[in-house]
């Protein structure tokens, strides 16, 4: 899809540039003559091709229905989209917007979230015990 889109965009841009240039040349040479039909057609066709290319290369749409959008979030999880920060961390797709509430793990769950109340000593203890037991699991 992206290849078709890129081709259409290139072709459309070429034709658009050509049409604009022809118009400029024509009006410079014959200031009072009407524009020939082929330039008009070329302009219109180039715009159509370019629009089609832009539609093809646009990212896929998000589901409008909330439940389906949310369902896709939890089904697919977060995944990389081929972009990295300077520190070398991949930029992931959008995730559960309510994860910060930390309610997903159930009562007394071990999920992250609610960082304002982050229990640093508990987490340290958990890690120390894991390391003491040989770091398996």
């Amino acid at each position, binding site marked *: 899809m992206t290849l078709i889109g890129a081709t259409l965009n290139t072709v459309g841009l070429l034709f658009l540039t050509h049409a604009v240039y022809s118009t400029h040349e024509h009006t410079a040479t014959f200031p009072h003559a009407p524009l020939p039909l082929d330039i008009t057609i070329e302009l219109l066709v180039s715009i159509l091709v370019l629009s089609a290319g832009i539609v093809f290369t646009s990212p896929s749409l998000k589901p409008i229905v909330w439940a389906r959008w949310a369902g896709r979030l939890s089904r697919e999880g977060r995944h990389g989209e081929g972009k990295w920060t300077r520190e070398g961390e991949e930029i992931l797709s959008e995730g559960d917007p309510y994860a910060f509430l930390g309610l997903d793990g*159930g009562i007394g769950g071990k999920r992250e979230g609610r960082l304002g109340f982050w229990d*640093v000593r508990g987490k340290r203890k958990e890690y120390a015990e894991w390391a003491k037991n040989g770091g398996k699991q």
Partner: protein
Amino acid sequence: MSHANLLSPPSSIPPKTALSLSQKAPLILAASPTSSLPWPLSLLFSRESPESWTIHENLFLSSLRTGDDKSARLTLDRMTTRFGADNERIIALRGIYEEALANTPAELEKVFQGYEKILREDPTNLSIRKRRVAILKSLGRPADAITALTVLLENSPTDVEAWAELSELYASQGLWAQAIYSLEEVLLVMPNAWSAHAQLATLYYLSTPSNITTLSLSLRYFCRSIELNDTYLRGYYGLKLVSQKLLPLLSDSTSLKRNNDEEEAGPPPKLATVKKLEELATSKLAEIVRQYNAGKTGWTGLDEAEVIAAKALLDHGGIER
């Protein structure tokens, strides 16, 4: 299914993931995002991006967790030079660092006194108020933590994070009615949060005394959570559990009459409806388990432990709690 990504860390961090997160420290600490050149040049040659500081903060937290206090100190110093020692967030992070290094309860008490002093100077510092609650919880004083949280919420009643924490604290004390009330406050601010609906349903399910009213309320909230998220495994899991519990109660007509006076919650659901819901939950769970195990693309985001639990529920009728 747990990539170690410091920019957006996974929703659950077991020790192994924490280790691989904190092992990125040397790489990130090697080059500072801010430039050391004098002012106008530093703007031109800065490597800073909006993500840099999120990464630093997450690195700070995970190195503290793995006991890599040296990296944590370096990260904290770097953030302090960038944002200043008076920044509310930096003050809270410094507090976390001191809490982590406190070995004895007496030392922790000293950190606590430090928080009190900060709050006397600036009573509006919400992050430090939250740290105070966290310390009280860590000291094993949940009643004091609850009091501190209620004071915080009186001053800032739309803080959903605090409401969620309060609900969790109440639930840990077995105060179900209060926990439910707090979570309803979360729903007032975020009515579309499917996890909050499922959590509320769980609270109703666990609350005592367990009767038709609480169970049907639980059923309703689980239904709402899957209405908001059509692949919400926890929602379907709970729906199946609750309807399995409700079915015998509903078919027993004597218990039905006794509870008819509960007007607030509305009439209990019809037997046929619950049966249908149970079938729906079963078929959806089966589909989720099948798709996940087949390893299809687009189904890899689910939590493996949750899928295993769902499979156990389908196979043996679940684990009794």
